[in-house]
């Protein structure tokens, strides 16, 4: 249940947002369209920019942090949350230096930090 609720659900939700609302076609949408031959509808978005571009990153970071909290249950959750945030930040830095795909955005780092904190928060109130 923890895996479903805290890992697969946020990842799936973020993936759906990327697939259906992101104007810039992503690798996965290119795969769906060009390899699987499916025509993805791009839903007209009156949705705020934040929900399309930052929310999926936050959901990804939340699931990332929750996964490591599940694996390292005996380690202080605050340490796991902090290390998860560092790793998420590292991924953004890789984008900044063009070491991987994607666009560097300071706001991505901010929302990832909030997401890691939220993962820690939900762990504490459990």
């Amino acid at each position, binding site marked *: 249940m923890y895996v479903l609720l805290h890992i697969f659900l946020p*990842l799936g939700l*973020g*993936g759906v947002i*990327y697939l259906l609302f992101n104007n*810039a*076609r*992503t*690798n*996965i949408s*290119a*795969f769906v369209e*060009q390899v699987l031959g499916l025509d993805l509808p791009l839903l007209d978005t009156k949705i705020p920019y934040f929900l399309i571009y930052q929310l*999926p990153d936050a959901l*990804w970071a939340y*699931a*990332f942090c929750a*996964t*490591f909290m599940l*694996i*390292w249950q005996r380690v202080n959750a605050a340490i796991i949350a902090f290390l998860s945030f560092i*790793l998420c930040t590292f*991924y953004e830095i890789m*984008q900044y230096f063009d070491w*991987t*795909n*994607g*666009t560097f955005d300071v706001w991505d780092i901010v929302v990832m930090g909030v997401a890691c904190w939220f993962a820690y928060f939900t762990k504490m109130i459990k």
Partner: protein
Amino acid sequence: MKIKSFVLSVLAGGLFFLFAVATSQPDEDFFSDVVTLSADVAVVDTFLTLKNTDTLIFSNANLTLTEMQVDSMGNTLSHASYFIAEYTLSPGNTDTIPLSAFKNDLTGQGDSYPIDVFPVTFNIEFFQDNKFFNLHVEL
């Protein structure tokens, strides 16, 4: 237990990284190497000078040429803006403008006076990177 946790961490980290890459924008030639080069012209704050009754002069960075590269999926790969600081054109004719006429700053200055000769249309042709541009401008 720690070894198992480390192995699981590496596996999970790898899967999350793959997911992140999958939801990022593709490289220029990840799925397609078809690149279309297009150009567009926008006129900003136009002032024209009539000179010798048959020649128009652009002044003070009137014209912005925006060059865009897009891949076959519509992703913008790069773009650059140029500004014509000052250039002489003959109305109704096709002129060839050397690239040196395009500047990427707004330093061009010159005497300019707004005149009432609109609309004015003309074409601009030039080559860049072995590609031919033919821009239709209507003021």
